[in-house]
């Protein structure tokens, strides 16, 4: 049901953009106003979100240590899994952000003969997550060709590598296929694994369908319908140079694609997608395990009521003396 609601929402969004352009001639709304609004929303609210997180301190040094601590010099220290300095944290975070280290640990509970537990390999979530995020990034980089007068070498390289299979005309981008497949897998697993379905919210399905919609409209334009790339680039350049124009000859499918992207941008700061920024701030990962070496200061540390030794001795002086324990006051 939640998946259906999400799916229909994305369909409706797509239909609004398509109809708005095809029947309402609202190119300026969907091609200029909404993109600007979406980007502004994204930037402002994403910054606000990060500042909000940042405004709460890390009162304690609470890394989750996933390896041997740095202790005695002859015991092999796990520098990346239990970092003892900034360099180690940088390494740990690089593994986390680029290779999803923690997700790579994933295991699947299995039961044998009814009562014997075992933990099997479970790399599919990791693989799909990697495939999805990396494809998305490469596709984003490829799209920079629309926003730069002279296409940067890095973008050309990304395009070249991405299409090295040399299939079809126009050349097939591997990431297009991988992205759609990965997102579809993530959707399938969300509805297919009972526990995951049970925890899923509309806000878990919606971004999947949204990204699927963006991918499908993009693929349709590149491989199946004709899109006037030159005009699209003109329009994109107009947007980034704050001199927007609506060139002729761009079909409603493009505006649909663009509108779904705008939706993603605007939705992003209010959704779980903020994990993109949050992962860099997670105290269990970004703090080094140094609390024994260097005092970590809690900005709101305040004095508390304690039961002092004096009070304790007052309570037990007679018993202490009888047991032969030294006392401060006779």
């Amino acid at each position, binding site marked *: 049901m939640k998946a259906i609601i999400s799916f229909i929402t994305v369909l409706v969004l797509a239909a609004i953009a398509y109809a708005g352009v095809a029947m309402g001639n609202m190119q300026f709304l969907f091609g200029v106003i909404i993109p600007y609004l979406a980007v502004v929303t994204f930037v402002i609210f994403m910054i606000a979100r990060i500042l909000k997180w940042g405004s709460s301190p890390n009162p304690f040094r609470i890394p989750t*240590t996933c*390896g041997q601590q740095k202790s005695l010099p002859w015991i092999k220290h796990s520098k990346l899994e239990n970092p003892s300095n900034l360099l180690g944290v940088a390494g740990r975070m690089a593994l986390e952000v680029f290779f999803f280290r923690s997700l790579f640990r994933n295991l699947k509970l299995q039961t044998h003969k009814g009562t014997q537990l075992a*933990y099997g390999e479970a790399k599919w979530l990791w693989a799909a997550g990697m495939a999805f995020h990396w494809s998305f990034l490469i596709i984003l980089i490829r799209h920079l060709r629309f926003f730069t007068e002279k296409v940067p070498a890095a973008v050309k390289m990304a395009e070249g590598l991405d299409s090295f299979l040399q299939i079809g005309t126009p050349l097939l981008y591997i990431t297009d296929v991988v992205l759609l497949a990965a997102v579809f897998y993530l959707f399938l697993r969300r509805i297919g694994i009972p526990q995951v379905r049970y925890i899923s919210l509309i806000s878990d399905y919606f971004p999947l369908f949204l990204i699927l919609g963006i991918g499908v409209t993009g693929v349709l334009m590149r491989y199946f319908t004709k899109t006037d790339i030159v005009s699209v680039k003109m329009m994109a350049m107009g947007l980034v140079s704050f001199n927007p124009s609506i060139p002729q000859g761009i079909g409603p499918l493009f505006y649909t694609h663009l509108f779904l992207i705008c939706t993603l941008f605007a939705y992003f700061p209010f959704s779980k997608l903020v994990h993109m920024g949050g992962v860099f701030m997670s105290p269990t990962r970004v703090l080094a395990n140094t609390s024994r*070496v260097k005092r970590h*200061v809690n900005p709101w540390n305040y004095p508390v009521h304690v039961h002092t030794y004096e009070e304790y001795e007052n309570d037990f002086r007679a*018993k202490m003396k009888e047991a032969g324990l030294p006392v401060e006051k006779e």
Partner: protein
Amino acid sequence: MAKLPKPEELAKIDYTLPKTEWLDTPVVFKEGMFCHGSKPKSLELVGFPNPRDWRPADADWKLPADWKEILLKGIAERLEKYRSFRLFMDICVRCGACADKCHFFIGTGDPKNMPVLRAELIRSVYRKEFTLAGKLFGRMAGARELTVDVLKEWWYYFYQCTECRRCSVFCPYGIDQAEITMIGRELLNLLGLNIEWIAGPVSNCYMKGNHLGLEPHTIVGNLEYMLDDIETVTGKRIKPTFNRKGAEILFVTPSGDLFADPGTYTCMGYLMLFEELGLDYTWSTYASEGGNFGFFTSNEMAKRLNSKIYAEAKRLGVKWILGGECGHMWRVLSQYMDTWNGPADFLEVPKSPITGTVFENAKSMKMVHVAEFTADLIKNNKLKLDPKRNDHLRVTWHDSCNTSRGMGMLDEPRYVLKNVVNHFYEMPEDTIREKTFCCGSGTGLNASEDMDLRMKGGFPRANAVKFVADHHGVNMLANVCAIDRATLKALMDYWVPSVGVCGLHELVANALVMTGEKERTTDLRGEPLPSAQVKEEKA
């Protein structure tokens, strides 16, 4: 109390999900799955709010009239205070990687024991009250109203989490359910919704210095019994000192070690080791608790209890502090103590008087774990060890949650272990080190009325022990945690009765050849040594 089902029945775990969505599935309090409510006296002694007689199974929890405002204010305050809390409320993508990592989910099959869903219990309220999407779209955005039923659900499930952090190892963003449970319990404590098994020890510890409420003369008396036993085994009379000013080292260990076996054997181990080293150290009856049940109620209470350790070190004028074998004690010490009650600038950087090793890793907080201390001794050949005395034992190692995931002390105890026993077998790799499974009874859940919960939560641990018991004939589960020593015994008796439980320093002391000792014929438990048996047979 309901009778505990047979292991064969408990092992049949039903993972089928309720037909209704979790938001529409009301919490049902099952007997054996929760602890008694806190008694008014325990709360009053430390000044916790809303002390009263109440029972968790009752419909009326005798909440203050403005309970909802108190809670919402409490949430708002903690969002400001803890980045962890604020972040973890926002960034979960519900990928489900944490789900089958939780020992309580594995053991109960209850979906609300998946860490993600346990967090959603509180996130749903956060969305409703603190996010735009939740306010606008309500249920559609996964938001819900805070009601008494929601509160009861929090209570039931935040006391079905042992803050073991295993989920946070697997979470791609490091979301740590322990943080959420800690804050959840702190919120519940604003309304006096504690359990007596935690509240009692907390008030004991505050007034008497330790969880068990052992008064000074009882501590001395309990140690005397152990000294008698040591004399029987070794022929040596040891005379430890208490509250002695001017000692070089203050020794602090969980009070569980002073009270019941097998913890007492570990305690005998410390006494024998320190005697053999001629260590200039003292016990304290005031700081007679290394553990910290305050940590399971609120940050403030934990700090109040913890303050005694540095205060006592200062009063006695020691140079540094040595800490006994414990799990959560060491998460508190290593990640919180210096921040709360430091700087301990009146102490010196810990230096082993025996080897001269300076413990640079404890440079600021000035406290060393006894496993680190002993590993250094063995590495420097300062101990005469006869591991054959432990040959009747086939040992496996249980990494405690907190020393593993809140510190990273993994190889020090293993090094010690390998030097004091000849038969050591690791459990399967996905159940040890940073992936170790909880005993199922941590964070103050080691009561007797929640035995169903404990046996279910401990099932994954027990299952891994059973594996090495079946494959390698393992008969002893060693660890560095006082709660483990108390709880794993019950767990083993239930699931793997052929396996005993012991602390690391019990094994060290068994193997330790002391100067001037008589020929040992038994181990610390009074059981005949294998070598003695051989001699008997020959004779």
